[in-house]
């Protein structure tokens, strides 16, 4: 069953086996596993439940509805926009359905360098396969590659670079192109559509519009949570197991606010975000509408030419198409006034690629004075250099595909018609405040490992210092992934949730 906190008109006290905080990719899988085991489990989601019929395909309505802080979350220096989902289904509601497993190099690094055990490629394979079946993951058909993605395909072919088509989890896609604003056709095989109904069928009680304010713990053991419904009514749930699945920002903020023991001051450290920025290519002659990149599936091709995930690699950039609707584009296109309007008139002739960095920078999450989570991300010069490499390479791909001009939206912007004009796109250019940067994959603020001095949770996801408290979300990744986190999160959830189930059983 599902309840809405905004309808609640009385105080509530619950006595359950397990509480899950957050209902995104990880929370939904953990809730399903717990409910199927016979545990009495309740999940709290701070955001609302959005039905397909609620998706208006309007940026001004859906961005504030589906994202944290009304899509205004930024690093504390206002340099990088950090987009994170909010609502039943979490970020799986607005993501673009990219499906890639965790690279073997990353899993090997986690074992070798970060002391993670039981998470090898072989250990995770059953979980990958099971999740891919559950979400009906399949390659995008050729006839579903839109013009913006076809630009990348042509650029890769012209340069002979590595890349290819991606797999997605969507069924019945209408190719409307509004994926990042939620699917009005319910074609995304997301947590809301696929996983949570199974969990509810198995007995999960899901509360939307309820914000967990504190994890309760005593003597090194979790005892439940205290929450508040959107109506203002308090909810207290006593439980033997609490699973934090509220994202790499939300989970650690809650742990800090709850004064969860942290003797080695690890909470919130090692934040990675995959910082990225976009490059636009102008195609066609005046009057010709050759791209219309907002139509069709947004991201179906990728470039991996500059992505070597081995430790110490100097190729840490993932390039993929990234088209936005009018507001997103107007914000990204540099400048203002008449010149900005002239640039906007090219909207239908633009192809846009983004470069995303497999980052080494270690930011951190802390609580601001008003109690809200804040993100500090002092981007390393090496990551700026990678971003610059990515932007130059994206521009090169656009030119190779036939763009008559490329625009790197810095301040000031760099316009180029030849590759040699791109030399100014260097590390000093690709720095925070130098150009509009966006991050959509926060991770790593309560990383996993067996050494409590340098990690927050064990390889099982259980907190080193509080029994029964599990952190099961992107927080526990010891490093950046270098790829889309959807399948990694679902699969790690599938793999690790059994430990929370066992803890709920043993009491």
């Amino acid at each position, binding site marked *: 069953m599902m309840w809405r906190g905004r309808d609640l008109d009385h105080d509530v006290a619950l006595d359950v086996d397990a509480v899950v905080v957050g209902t995104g990719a990880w929370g939904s899988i953990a809730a399903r596993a717990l409910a199927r085991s016979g545990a009495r489990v309740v999940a709290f989601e701070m955001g609302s439940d959005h039905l397909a019929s609620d998706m208006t*395909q309007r940026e001004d309505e859906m961005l504030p509805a589906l994202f944290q802080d009304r899509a205004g979350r930024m690093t504390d220096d206002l*340099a990088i926009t950090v987009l994170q989902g909010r609502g039943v289904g979490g970020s799986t509601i607005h993501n673009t359905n990219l499906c890639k497993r965790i690279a073997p190099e990353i899993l090997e690094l986690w074992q070798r360098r970060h002391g993670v055990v039981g998470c090898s490629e072989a250990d995770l394979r059953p979980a990958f396969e099971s999740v891919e079946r559950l979400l009906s993951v399949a390659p995008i058909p050729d006839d579903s590659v839109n013009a913006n993605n076809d630009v990348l395909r042509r650029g890769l072919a012209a340069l002979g670079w590595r890349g290819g088509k991606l797999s997605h989890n969507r069924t019945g896609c209408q190719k409307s192109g509004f994926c990042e604003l939620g699917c009005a056709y319910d074609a995304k095989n997301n947590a809301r559509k696929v996983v949570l109904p199974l969990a509810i069928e198995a007995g999960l009680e899901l509360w939307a519009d309820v914000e967990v304010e504190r994890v309760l713990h005593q003597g090194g053991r979790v005892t439940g949570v205290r929450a508040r419904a959107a109506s203002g009514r308090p909810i207290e749930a006593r439980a033997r197991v609490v699973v934090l699945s509220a994202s790499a920002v939300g989970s650690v903020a809650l742990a800090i606010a709850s004064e969860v023991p942290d003797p080695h001051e690890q909470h919130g450290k090692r934040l990675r975000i995959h910082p990225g920025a976009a490059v636009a290519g102008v195609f066609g002659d005046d009057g010709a509408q050759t791209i219309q990149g*907002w139509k069709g599936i947004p991201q179906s091709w990728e470039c991996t030419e500059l992505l070597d995930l081995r430790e110490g690699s100097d190729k840490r950039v993932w390039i993929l198409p990234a088209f936005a609707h009018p507001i997103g584009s107007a914000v990204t296109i540099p400048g203002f006034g*008449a010149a900005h309007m002239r640039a906007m008139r090219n909207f239908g002739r633009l192809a846009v690629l983004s470069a995303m960095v497999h980052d080494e920078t270690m930011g951190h999450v802390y609580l601001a004075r*008003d109690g809200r989570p804040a993100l500090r991300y002092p981007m390393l010069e090496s990551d700026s250099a990678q971003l610059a490499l990515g932007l130059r390479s994206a521009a090169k791909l656009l030119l190779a595909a036939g763009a008559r001009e490329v625009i790197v939206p810095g301040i000031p912007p760099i316009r180029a018609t030849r590759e040699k004009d791109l030399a100014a796109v260097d590390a000093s250019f690709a720095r925070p405040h130098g150009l509009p940067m966006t991050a959509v994959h926060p991770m790593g603020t309560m990383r996993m490992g067996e050494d409590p001095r340098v990690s927050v949770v064990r390889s099982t996801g259980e907190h080193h210092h509080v029994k029964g408290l599990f952190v099961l979300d992107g927080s526990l990744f010891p490093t950046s992934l270098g790829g889309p986190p959807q399948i990694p999160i679902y699969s790690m959830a599938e793999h690790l949730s059994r430990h929370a189930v066992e803890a709920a059983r043993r009491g």
Partner: protein
Amino acid sequence: MTAPAAPHGRRAFLRAVLAGTAVVAGTALASRLGGYDVDFRRAAYLKTLSPWHLAVLDAVAARLCLADVPYDSIGAPPHPSEVGVSEFVDAFVAAAHPTVQRDVKGLLALVEHLWPLRCGYAHRFTRLDAAAQDDVLAKMESASIGLVRGAFAGLKTLVMMGYWRDARTWGVLDYDGPLVGRPAGGFTPLRYRPLRGTP
């Protein structure tokens, strides 16, 4: 017998100086903070911003969303005031966390008062001519202080959201807008479980 009167004379003089300074400062402050041409019909609907915030937003939106052709020419986009950019920003910010509301109000004060001074203009933003306003905004966009750049980006985001959300602006882009409500070819309803309920 002039000596005993001297302290009284100094006090009187100091009082006069202080009073004069207060009057001058008050006048300057009143001149700087007052004198906004407020449309009370619009101001009555404000949710969180003040009438002077509205004036600043109107002025900023007019420069940020300036058309590249005269507004009365064929194919010209609508003026930001026509699409209610400032009212949108007010409503958008009113729904945000109180800290965000405070920050946005501070940002508007920065644009109106502090940043023009920093750029060498004696007058507040809304009293500058268009060229000077553009100069102030451009210097904000490229400021050496990162937070000021970030503040400009935030302001631009709010204004662009208020402007480009309106379907009347989409003609400039040949953007056809949302597809919901139109027949979706080949759409087959998927298995769907309503999850709503009441406790």
